[in-house]
């Protein structure tokens, strides 16, 4: 397989980034990812099923996330649902995107801060 290069995946679309972040703290099924994104962003970002599964499909193909065989207690959840978790690659991509965004943010702040461009 070709060598893994994080920069090939950057920048991520907001939906992609949100999915990776949603999986950062443990495996989830699709609906749980949707809920997590809405909760964490206070409803500012809402993913829909079409977008979500497009992202999931692509991430699975690229090896950024994987399906997990472990299931919670069937009484607690629908066993037919698929669960996904972040792979090492996925985590590396999420971290790299976070750093990229932080850097962009820092540069923007430095430029836009009051008094940054006085003549």
């Amino acid at each position, binding site marked *: 397989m070709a060598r893994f290069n994080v920069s090939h995946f950057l920048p991520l679309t907001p939906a992609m980034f949100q999915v990776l972040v949603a999986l950062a703290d443990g495996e989830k099924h*699709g609906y749980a990812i949707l809920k997590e994104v809405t909760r964490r962003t206070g409803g500012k970002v809402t993913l829909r*099923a*079409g977008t979500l*599964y497009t992202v999931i*499909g692509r991430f699975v193909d690229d090896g950024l996330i994987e399906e997990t065989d472990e299931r919670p207690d069937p009484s607690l959840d*629908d066993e037919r649902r698929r669960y996904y978790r972040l792979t090492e690659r996925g985590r590396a991509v999420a971290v790299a995107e976070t750093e990229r965004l932080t850097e962009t943010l820092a540069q923007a702040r430095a430029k836009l801060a009051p008094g940054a461009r006085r003549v």
Partner: protein
Amino acid sequence: MADRLFRLVLRLLPEEFRAAYARDMAATFRAEAASGPTGARWRTMADVVRRAPGIHADILRRDLRLAIRTLTARPLALIAALVTLTIGIGANVAMYAVIHAVLLAPLPYRDASRLMAVRETGVGGADSGTMGYLTFTDIKTRATSFADLVAASQSITTLAGGGRDAERVNVMRASRTYFDMIGAAPALGRTFTEAEDKPGAARRVMILSDSLWRRRFNADPSVIDRIVELSGIPFKVIGVLPATYQDLVASRLYQGAEIWTPLGYDPAAVFACRTCRHLRVFGRLAPGVTAEQATTEANRLFDAFERETPKDYNQAGADVRPLADLFLGPVRPVLLTLWAGVAALLLVACGNVAHLLMLRASERSEEIAVRTALGVSRTRLVRQFLTESILLAVAGGTAGMAVAWAAVRLVAAEGPDQIPRLAQAAMTVDVVLVGVALTLASGVIFGLLPLRQVLRHAAGGLQRPGVRATDTATAWRSRAALITANVAIAVLLLVGSGLLVRSLGGLLAVAPGVDASGVLTFNIFASGERFRPGQAANLPDDEQNRLQIAAAVQYYDEVLAKIRALPGVTEAAATTQLPLGGDMDQYGFHVHGRATAGTRESEAPSADRFVVTPGYFSALRIRLVRGRLLEDRDRQGAESVAVINETAAREVFRGEDPLGKRVSLGPADAPQRLIVGIVNDVRHGGLDAEVFPQVYVPHGQWAWAETGLAVVVRTTGDPAALGRPIRDLIRGVDAMQPITNMRPYTEVVAASIGTRRFAATLLTVFAATTIVMAMVGLYGSLGVMVSQRRRELGVRLALGATAARVRRLVLVNGLRPVAAGLFAGALLAAVSVGALESMLYGVRPLDAVTFLGAAAALAACAVLACLIPAARAARIDPATTLRN
């Protein structure tokens, strides 16, 4: 309800994606619907619809990436497949472009299928497709089958003035209604009036082609009514044809005429006689009349003509055929044969690529089984394989289209002039669309063939890893069938090309009756004021004619004498018609003192007439059989003489001695000429055409001054090197006279068989390509078979089989399908070569030499292709094989 709708929406997604995620998506949708607002459901559905194309594109991208990776893993096989397809598709697209331009595009006339060529037929030289003026006027008056009937002839003129160099321009003289009949109207001005289609000064009007108008008159619209001199005679410009005007009659039959003048014949003129067969006649069928009915009526009329003036006709009849047949009839079988050839080539190409893909499928059997075991669906596998095939086809098709583009340009520019409209062949939208369709169809065809194997491997599963003997046997059987098919098609093409090549060889071996080597030929002219002495002084016509002949003879003699004085020139002479040059002129040939009634069988009413200068026979090395040749002393004032060919002596005089007999050319009452010599036959109409009676008349004794002659110069050196000194020399004699068509005479002879050479060359190239493809396929298959049966062959060797025995085993395995192919191909060829009959010369369609030769050549190639895999098999080391 919403649930069901969502499931429907999910069907927009690719099957593979649905299999992985649809259930989850539906669950998510349900959960969302249970907890969220109603609007969210619709937004989710819209989101799926919006994302569907992207998901499809993603999968296609992935398939393509995988296909490229798989294909490039074996670069040699990939290159072989691509080259094969490029040639197959390229040749087909190019051939379609040619056929589209030549055969399929409608003739450029209004309601062209109703336009007919009306030709006189007969025996003894009356079958050149032309007729005399009086015959034409009689048909026009009496026939009811034609709504219109026109006659045409040609002349060549010098256009001077306007401060430009003198230029030779071909003129088509046509009946008044010619343009109306073909449905053409001028862009400027008008066409001819009835008064202009009569003898006299009124007929001196002309219509210009768009190209001549632009070249010569700077596209000046005020050119209408301007007086312009044609060879010194004033003509009034009355019209200019549009740029879009195309006229196959003018371009094919009248050397690309650019000026049209009215026919305006005087029925009493010497050249208007019934046996002065030089007019071509065209007609538009009357409404409701068929070509057959018109033929019947015309035949009845010719019967009547023959009864009325029996001396002018001999078993006369009519041939009425669509104009399209006249132009395209002779080339149709050539092009259709070549089309069949390229189609066969593409079939072999597809077979070969299918072959390569089948080999790959065999090699990938384990990979396919593993993927199936891992849950990859059959649909997915099929799509993956088809993606590979179509990718291959698209790459081959794109390269093929580029090859076709180059080939079409080459053929349009360099193809034989004998094929009408070939120069118009181009990669039009139609042609490109056919190319695209062909590409996709090829991809599907050679993609589907290996699929059975893929599916079998998929069904085989993992419990049977590796290649089993039965799998190998089945795969080998399908590949052997392909080898058989390829060899059969190769035999067919090789037999076809072999027959054409043998015909060409036969034609080249035909003695044309002239020796073309070391001869330069070109046309010179005698036009302008100085060649019309006596006209200004208003001398009587006879006297004017005599002076004009003297002026022309003196001019040509001076030029020829100067050419003869050039170093290296052994002879220089001139003729009105260059043998094999495509220009025919037939005259009535009447033996004086012979009663016509009752002896019709022995009459040859027409003969090819050549007006020549002394020295013509030695310049072309035409052999004197008896009597004497024409000499310098045969001039005006001396007794009129003629020389005839052996065919005339044999067919017209039938055992009598022609020498000392007198003949009249044209009408029976034309001046008599004494036959003084007999020379050998010259193949004037074509190397494959029948030789007609021929008669040679001295230039100094012809009835009028010739305004243009073809010169033949024999040299001891390279004829082409004489071009410049001859041009300088003629310019020194009269700078106003143009020189045209300068080329070695061998080129004229070669051009006369251009179409045959074109067909033979192309078909040979197709046959050779097919053989290479078939042999590459055979070699590849056998190689794979040997490596797959390595273990078995190793065991045989270990058990004591000799290397020779193993070698023989592989050879027999490879040659068996070849033998079947040879047999099938020979059968196929035997039933289809009949289609070639019209293109053959001196060889029968079922020519044993060609059939056996083709089979032997292919068998030899096949043995060569089998030898390397057989040798490799014999070198297998049993110990190593068994250990592995």
